[in-house]
């Protein structure tokens, strides 16, 4: 490895601008003549919309225009598209109700946009919105999934509240295996609804150029090309060539900025109507009711075991909340990103899962850090602990017994996926050692002397990332393939720009990608710029989510680099009067093998652009190449997370006293960035387990609608982490990388809850739903005490 190449903990190139306040986020951008948008949103969860009187508001100071859903419809524009369709058990299509950009006829959740006011200032737009008179006739509210399936329940959409009823696996074989079981472990559990809460609130600026007829949208997006495609083709119905989407610096995404949102379409469309740029920036309260939420599953799971504790079959029934409308990728999350992960790290030979997706009068739910995989992992790793309890077996032992052995790869699971590599015994052994699992009993005793309940929990998880092999996702219902694209432009004096279809919103691509190039071309990372997030610069791209940036985007870069090196060798061969086959690239120089004849990289690039001695008949001038890469398979990171907690029985407060994570992410390009990604994921996973949850009341009002009542993890809520990596290389991409963005959020929640349950075991507690808040634990402990006293 070079000092800056693959494997080096290079400090990030992007940090200087972020640290000095020169980052360029969407809200930092202002266009000449800009106006401001404010969305009037529904305050009630379910109602029919009568007359909308905007006359008074239109006359308010500074107001430029007001639009409602009727204006959108009258203009012949479409609704927000759903990108992934799922089939019902019987093969019939799922219900795909319309998702108007601005509500038409009905509002279906608190926050559903009814109208948009465009004014000279944001304050004026907001003031004017208060003057709009909307006649709403309230309808009964479908607040929860339980409400949605009650007989006679109100309907969120005309087709009823079931979006789809899907299944995977072999039901008959599963039922048969259960009949033969020595023991069965059962578990009912909830995976709580979360709010992603990237620190940068969403924003969008629509800017129509009357001279050229081109639209530009600046937006807080993880995948600008996808937004251009969806908005251009489905909503506004204009050719891509007249639509530019720019996602500049983006302050975190975690999934919530993947999707195409109503506000983006509205400001882009309306900017042509008013003939001026329009900026919208949401405040935090607005983001709570307009960003897609995450998770929200209710499941019942059962594992059948033989007399040695070997898993025979897994049966799972899950209800997944879609919210009021289908967000872009929502149907895929509880199906192909969830149920296909239920084998986990284990050899369970038969699995059957049924998933019902339901509509409720709540904010739409879609992918959030991990998307489906945390839900699968939480269910499985909680259930495995119950299996151990049921068998009277050690929690580590039961895992070891059921692991897919290291020599069994590639491994075909019963739920569609084929894992390419992994070594679960190794990550487990390493984590047990770092966490000092063996010494825990002594620590438990010491804690007990101080009156504290100490527990330890383990999770040996697996995830699928590097989304996705296009043919596979297509056969699974995705309306688009998901390859990635890279364009590499070597400039005349040898500096390099990488144009990538991925998007960095904290992942450090500007550094990691530069390392890939430095490694291959032997030049300094100071000579390399990474450009992303602008559809006018980059050929195409699918963006960043599902930990795909390095496995898919990085591989596209490697493929483009191969082409660059190939062509550079031809130029070098000509300049050095040698055969291209004899040219080697060594330390940034093109050398005739076995001689000291060489040309520096900069000499080749100069020759390519300002040719006077150049093989122009056989090699075109210029040194720029594009590559598209479509992966053959997902990648499969996995690992072991161990959490140690101490609970104060007087207050119910849980403190994470130690957290160990050993993750197999394949080859590590920048260990510093990899560790940072793990830390962030752990914070979100521990946050879900102990603190965070989205709460609605029975009227569909969002109770946790601000940072005053949604508990974000703060510095003092979290420990320092012990993290380590282990590498079994991915076998089907040339870098051997697997992905790291989500592992922390996937592996940690069950480790935390398993630790909490372990701490409470003696009091009779067998399960606790997330978040394990102090009041919940205190109540559990006290009901236990009361029961004991009676």
């Amino acid at each position, binding site marked *: 490895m070079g000092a800056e190449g693959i494997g080096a903990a290079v400090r990030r190139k*992007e940090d200087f*601008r972020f*640290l000095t306040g*020169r980052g360029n986020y969407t809200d930092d951008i202002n266009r000449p003549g800009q106006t401001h948008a404010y969305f009037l949103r529904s305050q009630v969860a379910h109602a029919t919309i009568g007359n909308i009187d905007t006359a008074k508001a239109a006359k308010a100071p500074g107001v430029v225009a007001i639009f409602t859903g009727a204006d959108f419809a009258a203009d012949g524009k479409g609704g927000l598209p759903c990108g992934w369709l799922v089939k019902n058990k019987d093969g019939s299509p799922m219900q795909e109700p319309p998702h108007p950009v601005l509500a038409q006829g009905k509002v279906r959740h608190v926050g559903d946009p009814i109208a948009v006011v465009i004014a000279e200032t944001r*304050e004026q737009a907001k003031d004017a919105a208060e003057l709009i008179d909307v006649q709403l006739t309230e309808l009964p509210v479908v607040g929860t999934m339980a409400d949605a399936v009650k007989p006679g329940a109100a309907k969120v959409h005309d087709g009823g509240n079931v979006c789809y009823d899907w299944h995977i696996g072999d039901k008959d074989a599963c039922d048969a295996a259960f009949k033969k079981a020595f023991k069965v472990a059962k578990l009912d559990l909830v995976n709580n609804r979360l709010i992603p809460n*990237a620190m940068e609130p969403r924003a969008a600026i629509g800017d129509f150029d009357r001279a050229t007829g081109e639209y530009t949208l600046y937006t807080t997006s993880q995948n600008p090309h996808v937004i251009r495609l969806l908005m251009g083709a489905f909503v506004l119905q204009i050719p891509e060539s007249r639509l530019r989407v720019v996602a500049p610096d983006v302050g975190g995404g975690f999934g919530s900025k993947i999707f195409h949102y109503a506000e983006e379409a509205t400001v882009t469309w309306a900017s042509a109507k008013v003939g001026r740029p329009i900026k919208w920036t949401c405040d935090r309260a607005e983001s709570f009711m307009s960003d897609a939420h995450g998770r929200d599953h209710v499941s019942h799971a059962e594992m059948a075991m033989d007399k040695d504790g070997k898993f025979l079959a897994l049966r799972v029934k899950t209800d997944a909340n879609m919210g009021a409308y289908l967000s872009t990728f929502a149907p895929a999350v509880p199906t192909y990103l969830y149920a296909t992960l239920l084998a986990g790290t284990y050899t369970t030979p038969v699995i059957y899962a049924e998933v019902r997706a339901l509509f409720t009068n709540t904010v739409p739910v879609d992918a959030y850090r991990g998307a489906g995989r945390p839900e699968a992992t939480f269910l499985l790793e909680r259930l495995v602990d119950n299996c151990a309890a049921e068998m009277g077996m050690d929690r580590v032992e039961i895992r070891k017994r059921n692991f897919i052995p290291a020599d069994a790869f590639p491994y075909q699971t019963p739920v569609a996926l084929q894992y390419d590599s992994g070594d679960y015994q190794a990550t487990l052994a390493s984590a047990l050692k770092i966490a000092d699992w063996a010494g825990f009993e002594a620590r438990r005793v010491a804690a007990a002397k101080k009156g504290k309940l100490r527990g330890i929990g383990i999770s040996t998880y697996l995830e699928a990332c590097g989304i996705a092999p296009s043919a596979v996702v297509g056969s699974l219902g995705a309306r688009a393939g998901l390859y990635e694209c890279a364009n590499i432009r070597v400039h005349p004096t040898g500096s390099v720009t990488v144009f990538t279809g991925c998007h960095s919103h904290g992942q450090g691509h500007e550094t990691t990608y530069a390392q890939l190039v430095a490694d291959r071309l032997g030049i300094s990372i100071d000579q390399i710029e990474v450009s992303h997030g602008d559809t006018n610069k980059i050929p195409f791209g699918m963006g960043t989510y599902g930990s795909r940036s390095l496995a898919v985007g990085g591989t596209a870069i490697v493929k483009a680099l191969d082409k660059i090196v190939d062509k550079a060798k031809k130029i070098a061969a000509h300049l050095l009067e040698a055969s291209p086959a004899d040219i080697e690239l060594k330390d940034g120089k093109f050398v005739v093998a076995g001689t000291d004849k060489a040309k520096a990289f900069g000499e080749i690039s100069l020759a390519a652009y300002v040719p006077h001695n150049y093989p122009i008949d056989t090699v075109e001038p210029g040194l720029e190449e594009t590559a598209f890469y479509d992966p053959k398979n997902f990648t499969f990171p996995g690992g072991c997370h161990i959490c140690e907690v101490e609970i104060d029985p007087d207050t119910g407060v849980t403190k994470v006293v130690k957290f160990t994570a050993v993750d197999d992410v394949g080859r590590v390009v920048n260990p510093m960035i990899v560790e940072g990604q793990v830390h962030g994921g752990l914070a979100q996973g521990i946050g879900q387990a102990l603190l965070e949850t989205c709460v609605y009341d029975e009227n569909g009002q969002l109770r946790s609608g601000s940072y005053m009542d949604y508990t974000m993890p703060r510095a003092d809520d*979290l420990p320092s982490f012990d993290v380590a990596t282990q590498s079994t290389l991915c076998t089907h991409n040339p870098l051997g990388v697997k992905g790291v963005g989500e592992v922390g959020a996937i592996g940690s929640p069950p480790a935390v809850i398993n630790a909490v349950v372990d701490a409470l075991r003696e009091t009779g507690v067998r399960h606790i739903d997330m978040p394990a808040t102090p009041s919940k634990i205190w109540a559990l402990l006290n009901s236990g005490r009361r029961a004991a006293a009676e």
Partner: protein
Amino acid sequence: MPKVSLTVNGRAVSADVEGRTLLVQLLREKLGLTGTHVGCDTSQCGACVVHIDGKSVKSCTYLAVAAEGANVTTIEGLANGNELHPMQAAFKEHHGLQCGFCTPGMVMSAVDLAKRNSNPSEHEVREWLEGNICRCTGYHNIVKAVQAGAKAMAGAKAAAD
């Protein structure tokens, strides 16, 4: 409209503002200092922290008119040209940032802590940062960065004295 005059990053400025205009709006919208961010509307997140007369303050809950005559430092006023302030350098060295959105507020809070306590413990740093939310880093590296930055600031001060 009331006029407000103050010093921002060593430069005398004045602007016409509304009574309801917040300091963060004055900085971002009138003065173009977009390094100070807005992450919430309940003064919980700390993305907007600046220094007023040397002390860290959430500029999203500070009326612009109340800053009359004050000496304000924002993230743009911290580095010396292209040379990072020791706290900024520590954040870079210890990978204390990812998306960078919370970072200006974090750094401004951290500098204030370091001025009060040149050798804060992990626990002291975590408590001090209660008002700053980061969704990306998990805080682990921020804590390390703040400790290192505080030491570096003390070292730089000792060298200067």
